[in-house]
Structures are given as C-alpha cells and as structure tokens.
C-alpha cells in the first residue's frame, strides 16, 4: 500500500511540476475564464473547459471559504456516496490551469462587471440560494422552517447555524413531496446510530437525540402519480429501520389501472408506493412494522391554508390543509380546491416547495418568473461573454448528473464560441491579477484550494476522533482561522 502511494505521489510531483512550467510558457496568451460559484455546476464547467482546450485558464470564485456548494450543504449526510464527486472536483481544482478563490462574494466583493472586464468569459453558476415561500398566514411562527434552512442547519451551512429547530413535538409536517422533503423526513426519523456515523453536525445530532418527533407527514397538492421524489429516496423511506409507513389505501384508487401506460421510472415509483400502501406485508415485514416506534406517510391532495398557532400565539400548534381533487391525469393533472379543509396537529412545519435562484445584478438578464438567467445552451441572452450553468441555468431541479450534463453543454457552447470567433479572445486579459488587486484594496482575502485542504484536514481529523467521516467547522470565522493557520 505505502509502496503504491509513494510511486503515485512521486509521479504527481513530477507531472505537476512539468505542467506548471508549460502553463507559464503561454500564460499571457491564454483565454481567461472565470466561474462564479463552486458547486457541481462550477466544477463540471471548469473540468470540461480545461479538458477541451489547453489554452484556457479557469478561476473559480466562491462566496464561502469552502468549496462544493450543495454537495457539502445540501446532499443528505447519510448519502456519502453521492459526495464522491468531490474527488473529481478536487482533481480539477489541483490542475495548474484552475484556481479556486473562496471567501469572495461576487456582487459584493467584486462585481460581475469587473469580472467581465478582467476575463474573456464569465460563467455564472451560483446556484439557487433563495426560497419559495408558502404565502400562507402564520408562516412566520416559531416552528415553521424552510427546508433549505433545515437542511442547511443539519449540514453545517454557517448562515443556518442559529436555526435550532424545536423538536419537542410528536408530529412534523413537511410540505412538498420531492427528494429534499424525503431527505428531511429521513433525517428526522433515522435511528441515531445511523446518523452518528455521518458528517451531520454535532449540534444537529444532539438536537435529534432529544427529538420527540415520532411521526412525519409528507404533504402534496396532488396524488401518488404526481410525486416529485425519485424511487431511490422512496425505497430508503420504505426500508428505514424503526419506521412504518402510514399510507391511505383510498388515495390509490384507479392507480393500478393507470400504471401500464406510464414510462418506466414513473411506473416503478408508483408501483413501489402502491405496494407499500396496499399489499399485506409478509410475516417478517409485519413484525418489523409493528415493532417500529416511528411512522411516516404521504398526505395527498392537500394544500396549506394556514399555520395554526397555540393559544398564546407563540408557536406552531397545527396546520390547516385544503382538500383538493385532481383535474386531468398524469404529470399535467391540476389540483383543484374542493372547499373542504382539514386541521392536522403538529409542532413543526417544514416547507419544501423549492429552491429559487436570485438575480445577482440589474445588468445581468434575469427571468424572474422562472427564476433563471435566460439563456440558450448556457449563453446568456444579449450578453456576449457571459454564460450560465447549473441550477441558475436550469432551475432548481434534477440530480448532480443532470447538473453535470448541462454544465458540460455550457462549456461546449463557450468552446464553440471561442472557435467560431463569437467570443473575442484576441486581446490579452489580466484575469485574476486585476481581480486580486481589487480584492486586496477592499480588504478581502481569498481562500485558496490548498487553504481549503487545511480546513478539510482539520475536519477529517476531528471526525476521526468521533467516528465520523468529518466534523464540519460551523462558522466562517473558524474556517478562515484554520485556512490562515
């Protein structure tokens, strides 16, 4: 093992040295591209650019001192496999033609205009950090949280550290039936033994250890055939230890007949759900279910009307749901109010109805209805040299593989434009040189990728002590302190 290691690190040194030397040779005539945001979109765009063209240099600017966006702050702690993409991102970041500048907030520390002056091309991939509100009375009550914040809290996003959700109630209601909703449900219900071996934050682990939540209802406007989650996440719920499903047979009327015409993914998803709801389980499964102390269930055909407060109006005591019926069928079916309402007692409401991209500057086109930057194949409309990728380009849906493909497409567009001359790369551009000067003047000190590797090292070592893959640093100050040590 150590022999292997030595051989490879020797090679690494040699090749790293050589490529640095080569890159210095054509430093000044290189095409300088900057990327805003270091999530999967940023890194996959960078990867493709560097790979496609030997004369491109890529700088990635990231608001936080730490890279990887939602891979670090979104993906559930019990999905460590998903985070393996970090290895590929790390390889990209270590390329001599790629530089990471963390702790630089574009729009505040440096403007998009300044970046456009300094670089031949700017790729916006700053994700979807806004939140779709429910727009119902009572949504500001204590006990109501956006899934984005709840997820940020258990994943150690510095801005969500103070959330401290009150988990002293028995029932939690989650609004929305996508994968994020199921992530939240799983984290609320998972046995502590599972969670404590993940990179979930220590404060979240402690709060969950004290949690009284025994029942999680996952509410959707429409029916079982319209849920937005994928089958992997549903299967995880079905198999979650110490929980049993609570589904209503009546919700599945007519579903069996509709199955045969569905495309395979939707068909398999619906089959698993109806099987869980309707089939009488075998003896072993029956035993498992009756021994379970926690329950989860989908509540279909319901829209939030109002969050109900306790008599003192100091916190959440329940939620009023409107009962819907469906008009039409399939993916396009519409939920229509029946006029009936139903109250559910609960102390925690988590709204998981979607992330939302935010505009970065009035000079950058933004479609506020779709909450994306209007683009064709990643080229921002009416803005030469400006590109976008990731959730900012597509809207906040899809898995990392979706983001990857669409980021490669953006990179392809950029390369095409270089080759066709649509993107003017004839004049030399200063790139990070001028931006660094600006940042220094403004007192902003970027975090480099090797600084991040120090943070990574500290986190991994802290994790090792407690049997976790990592123990995340929870504040920007702490991150910066380690980065500068």
């Amino acid at each position, binding site marked *: 093992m150590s022999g292997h290691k030595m051989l*490879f690190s020797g090679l690494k040194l040699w090749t*790293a040295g050589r490529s640095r030397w080569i890159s210095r040779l054509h430093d000044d005539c290189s095409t300088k591209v900057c990327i805003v945001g270091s999530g999967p979109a940023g890194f996959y765009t960078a990867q493709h650019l560097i790979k496609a063209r030997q004369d491109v240099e890529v700088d990635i600017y990231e608001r936080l001192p730490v890279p990887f966006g939602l891979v670090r702050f979104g993906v559930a702690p019990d999905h460590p496999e998903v985070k*393996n*993409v970090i290895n590929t991102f790390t390889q990209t970041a270590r390329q001599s033609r790629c530089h990471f500048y963390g702790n630089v907030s574009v729009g505040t520390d440096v403007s998009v205009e300044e970046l456009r002056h300094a670089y031949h091309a700017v790729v916006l991939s700053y994700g979807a950090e806004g939140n779709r509100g429910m727009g119902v009375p009572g949504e500001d009550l204590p006990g109501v949280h956006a899934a984005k914040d709840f997820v940020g809290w258990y994943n150690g996003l510095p801005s969500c550290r103070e959330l401290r959700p009150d988990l002293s109630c028995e029932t939690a209601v989650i609004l929305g039936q996508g994968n994020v909703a199921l992530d939240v449900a799983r984290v609320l219900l998972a046995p502590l033994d599972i969670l404590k071996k993940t990179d979930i934050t220590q404060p979240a682990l402690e709060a969950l250890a004290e949690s009284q939540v025994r029942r999680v209802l996952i509410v959707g406007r429409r029916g079982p055939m319209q849920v937005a989650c994928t089958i992997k996440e549903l299967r995880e719920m079905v198999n979650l230890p110490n929980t049993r499903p609570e589904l209503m047979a009546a919700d599945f009327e007519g579903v069996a007949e509709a199955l045969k015409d569905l495309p*395979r993914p939707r068909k398999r998803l619906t089959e698993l759900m109806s099987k869980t709801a309707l089939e009488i389980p075998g003896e072993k499964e029956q035993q498992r279910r009756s021994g379970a102390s926690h329950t989860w269930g989908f509540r279909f055909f319901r829209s939030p009307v109002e969050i109900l407060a306790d008599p003192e109006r100091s916190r959440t005591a329940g939620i009023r749901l409107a009962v819907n019926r469906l008009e039409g069928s399939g993916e396009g079916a519409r939920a229509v109010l029946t006029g009936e309402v139903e109250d559910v007692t609960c102390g925690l409401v988590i709204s998981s109805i979607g992330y939302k991209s935010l505009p970065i500057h009035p000079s950058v086109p933004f479609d506020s209805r779709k909450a994306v930057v209007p683009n064709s194949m990643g080229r921002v409309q009416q803005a030469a040299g400006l590109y976008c990728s990731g959730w900012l380009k597509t809207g906040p849906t899809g898995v990392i593989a979706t983001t*990857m*493909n669409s980021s490669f497409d953006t990179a392809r567009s950029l390369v095409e434009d270089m080759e066709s001359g649509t993107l003017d790369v004839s004049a030399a551009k200063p790139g990070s040189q001028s931006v660094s000067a600006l940042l220094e003047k403004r007192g902003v000190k970027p975090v480099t990728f090797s600084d991040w590797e120090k943070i990574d090292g500290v986190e991994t070592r802290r994790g090792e002590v407690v049997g976790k893959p990592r123990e995340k640093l929870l504040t920007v100050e702490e991150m910066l302190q380690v980065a500068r040590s």
Partner: protein
Amino acid sequence: MAFVTALRRLAHVRLREYSWRTAAVTSGAWLTSQRSFTSSSPSLRSDNKVTINFVNRDGEKITVKGSPGDSLLDIVINEDLDFDGFGACEGTLACSTCHLIFDEDTYKSLGPVTDEEMDMLDLAYGLTDTSRLGCQICLTKSLEGVVARVPESVADIRQSKDESS
C-alpha cells in the same frame, strides 16, 4: 476483498490524476498513456484478459482489454477512456453516469438486475430496455467481445425544447 477494492480505487484515482496531468502537457492527447504499473499487478495478467468494445458518444469504437472480476467502470478508469463525466459516484450506485447500453442478447446474458440498480437507472438519460450501469457489471470470460454503447447525454436537448415551447 473490500480492502483490495478500496486499494484499487485509490490507485485508480491516482492514475486518473496522473494521466490528467500528462494529458495537460502532451497537448491534445487526453486519454492515451501506457501505464506499466497496472499491468505489473498480478490480477491483470494478460493471458486471461477479456476484450470489450466500447462505442463512445461520437459512435467511435474503442477496443480494450480487461480482467475478469473488474467492473466495466474499472475498465473505463484503468484504460483512461475519455467518456466525459462517466462514473461520478465512483461505482457506489448513486449517480447513473456509468449508464451503458447493450444489444438484447448481451443484456440477457448479463444476468439479473437488482432493484437498487434499476432505481438509479431510472434516472439515466436515454434509458432503454437494455440499459445497465457499468459499475454493476463484472467482467467474465463469457463476455469476450462484448459491445457496450455510451449513450448520448440529452440534458439540453430537452431543455432547449422546453424553452421554445
């Protein structure tokens, strides 16, 4: 066994890094490099190797050899095949980027598919009835000469349609 896999995985990551950097200096030639150290590993003796034909996204056929027991993902990594984004989750059944398409007879000969693999496949672009995930297929002697097609990524084809509607 798990340890061996982990060790191999480590070696692969390093290898990938190595060839990435070489590619950077040998301008253009992104993928090819002879790595004597892989073939010196005892499990990779050439006598019992199996031939695999990959068809890449441009329709080009790439013929390589692999050892029984390797997954098709292992082979893509070992041989440094340039399939953009292939194997993002490193073979842990969490991404579907190792999607490969086979002809019907081969598909049948590959054996049963687990629910978990089907679950991830359901998220793959260009899913067909004879799709599999490359990281879940172990090479055997009986797969000699197998043809595996890397599907095109159609992310933006769909998106641009959405936009125009």
